[in-house]
């Protein structure tokens, strides 16, 4: 091989460079986020595991039902109580802090949903 003296160190430097995030952050994983849960209610509209994995789909379904189908009925149930399908008027009435609830996981997972460009977060 010609110029192996340059190529091999070059390759090593390249591999080190592109794996930088892996070895630099190794063992430094941040603590799993602990979103603050509401004190008023113990249950949500779905079991916690489903909410964790599917709240975004649920919000989209609610949006389509309310906005496009025009179904504004109060058909979301927690126990016997009925709620309307609304982020601002249902979810955030219990989860009163966007910073302590939404943002904890979203920041951790590095996702930036655009909900709050239009929807109004609770006053904190």
């Amino acid at each position, binding site marked *: 091989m010609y110029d192996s003296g340059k190529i091999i160190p070059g390759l090593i430097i390249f591999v080190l460079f592109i794996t930088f995030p892996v070895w630099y952050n190794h063992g430094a994983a941040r603590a799993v986020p602990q979103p603050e849960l509401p004190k008023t209610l113990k249950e949500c509209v779905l079991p916690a595991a489903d909410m964790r994995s599917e709240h975004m789909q649920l919000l989209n379904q609610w949006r389509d039902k309310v906005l*496009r189908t*025009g179904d504004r009925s109060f058909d979301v149930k927690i126990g016997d109580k009925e709620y309307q399908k609304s982020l601002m008027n249902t979810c955030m009435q219990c989860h009163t802090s966007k910073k302590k609830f939404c943002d904890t996981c979203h920041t951790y997972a590095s996702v930036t949903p655009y909900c709050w460009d*239009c929807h109004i977060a609770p*006053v904190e």
Partner: protein
Amino acid sequence: MDKKRRDFLKVAGATTLAGLGGPAIVERLVSGSSPVQAKAAHGERLAGHGADTHAGAAGHGEETVKSGNRFGMIVDLRKFKQYPELIEKVVHACHAEHNVPHFPTRKDEIKWIWPTEYEKAFTEHSQYYKDKPTISNEVLVLCNHCDEPPCVKACPTRATFKNKDGIVAMDYHRCIGCRFCMAACPYGARSFNWLDPRVGLDMNHINRYFPTRMRGVVEKCNFCAERIGLGKKPKCVEVCGETRAMIFGNLNDPNSEIRKALKENYTIQRKPSAGTHPSVFYIV
């Protein structure tokens, strides 16, 4: 391979015939009926469809069977003449209810409901020698929630659409800000958010039960779809209250308040020749 001219012409002729006649035969087989029956069925389908979209021919002199809702409004300009402070009250109430920002420059302005001059509101009506009260009084204008909304046809993402209540609604999640709808609307009822609307709002005094919009979307009056869905009247109508300066109701229901008022009064509409069939009527 030896191809004779005679054979080639035979095959070519048969292919042409099959190409011309084939689709017609296949269509006949698929529909399983004679052309006359197929036509009748098609007509029926059209009629059924018509009941849906053309249901609200109210105000256009047709008395067809109507199904579903088509919400409409009457703006009684006589009452607004009688209560001159009402216009501002209505505009303010609507804009406060829906977090409509206030920007002083005309280009950036966002309007859901606003007063304008008679000659600008009713451009198709003769302006010659109009009586002074008509000319000098302002007309409250808003989205007409047309039965044939040109904005809906123009929207490439279906962000604006006609909902089950006949309201021309906006889904701001889908709006890409192309402004085709603004070009299509003959009434100038749509505003574009050139600036972040939250800059033009006092964020400490907003309606926390209704969202704002974001920069880069088009917005307009939603006929208070969020209130109608909960069985309330639109905010502007509620503010007018006992003055009955604005009447709201279902145009497809012959016994509704609005239909009674339409029967009793001579009403006009904005730009009827545009063929949009507005749902907002004016008593001048």
